[in-house]
């Protein structure tokens, strides 16, 4: 059994145009590991949505991707405002993004629902005023 691989990223909250760079890098690395393209696709969409969320709502944060032989965990941690009603936030189409964010084509209210859809397990730990940690797991086999 080999040691888990860890990829760590700082997600810059001030820059929209660079959002998504971590998921691109992870995608390249996972391709080098020879993972099935379906696993890579699920992971990159789930992670991309998470990255965008952190930029829109929490002024950035950190992303850690932990690869083991059985599964991949994505841990997205921010010190943002927290999510007051997780069930509401999970509803498709629900969004608290500003008009400015909408004008950029984001904020469709599909971020969290897509993260859930493309991961196999998802856990949200959130505290108002403290921050949010989203942990997603994708099983390799």
């Amino acid at each position, binding site marked *: 059994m*080999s040691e888990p691989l860890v990829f760590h990223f700082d997600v810059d909250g001030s820059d929209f145009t660079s959002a*998504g760079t971590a998921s*691109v890098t992870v*995608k390249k690395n996972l*391709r080098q*590991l*020879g*993972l099935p393209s379906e696993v890579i696709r699920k992971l990159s969409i789930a992670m991309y949505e998470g990255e965008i969320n952190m930029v829109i709502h929490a002024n950035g944060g950190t992303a850690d991707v932990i690869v083991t032989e059985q599964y991949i965990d994505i841990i997205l941690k921010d010190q943002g405002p927290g999510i007051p009603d997780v069930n509401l936030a999970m509803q498709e189409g629900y969004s608290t993004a500003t008009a400015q964010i909408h004008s950029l084509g984001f904020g469709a209210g599909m971020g969290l629902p897509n993260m859930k859809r493309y991961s196999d397990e998802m856990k949200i730990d959130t505290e108002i005023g403290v921050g949010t940690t989203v942990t997603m797991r994708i099983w390799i086999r």
Partner: protein
Amino acid sequence: MDSYEHSVLLDRSKCTGCTTCLHHCPTEAIRIVNGHAVINQDRCIDCGECIRKCPHNAKRAVASKLESMDRFRYKVALPAPSLYGQFNNMDDVDYILDGLLKIGFDEVFEVAKAAELVSAYTRQYMKADGVPKPLISSACPVILRLISLMYPSLEDHVLHMLPPMEVAADLARKKVKKEHPEFSEEEIGICFISPCPAKASYVRNNFGNYKSKVDEVVAISDIYFRLLDVMKPDNPVQAISDTGMTGIGWAGSGGEATAILNEDYLAADGIENVNKVLEEIENGNISHVKFVELNACPGGCVGGVLTVQNPFIAKARIRTVSRCLPMAVNFPDPSEEYIPENFLFDEMPAYVPVSRLSPNFAESMRMMSEIQRIRATLPGIDCGACGAPTCRAHAEDAVRAGKRTVSCPFADTIGGNR
């Protein structure tokens, strides 16, 4: 895997090992070894970036010489639409086509003509149920190779329509066989007049299980001066051209996409932009777009490295020559219910995991962790002095070669940096 025969050659006497191409190769296929650039053939996608960027003209695209057509008794030229944008003060395509006859071809069949048919059938294709969104154009051979090497999850998005060059070759051959039964199959030669070295590779290597019907690919730059010599604007020429604005418009980026006659399209050109768009498609970000046209060359095919003229000037001239033409003049037979088979290809080339570290997952993980360890000892300035494009690539090369240490000229002075 059979080795893929490429169209980019290096003139070692001109290459100074300057690292310019190293930094511009989109697939990190180049290394500097013993002072000269070396291309990893498995990774090269024939995009021509290294040719475009080399300050010493040490990189060259190879295509056939016009003389290679001498072995055929009946020679057919297939001029790419981009050829029409290469000439000054020229507003009538017939002078160019007449020029092709004067330099030795027996017949000319415009690729633009086939392009109009491909456009018409693509519109039909997009009406079918279950068409992936977005549909990605299959006309640029570099894009097809890029997808089959780096974006395997997007293979299902590729339009399975043959590129206009192939359709033109098929139609031209059928036409000649019908009109000139005196020539045997082997006596008829089909020559694509190309802006693009990747087309030469595509023809030489075939594509997936599809065997190209083009016999030779000759560079626009190779016949350019010969054409200039025989093109006399004062002499009247016979009307040969049989194409509209739509077909000729394929020469530039956006030409194919606008011919879809659906505004939900996107057209990107230049390999860096193309990569960004493909990433966005993979992230499921532009699913509202129905059609995506991607061209590896800046400006589209007019930006090909086998052309003569600046791509933007060429694009402006394309507008000039097509100004007074109807939108399109080639249409499929309206009685056809299905897209004919000679316009379609079956399958994409098999995915080749060129970047995979090892066939064994656990071993790949071990190697990746070793790459991370070595990478952290390197300065992260991606200077290329070691011969690899980035510090990350240098660490990867070492691990692939089974080395535990690397030779970085600056590791001691600058130190490691993540």
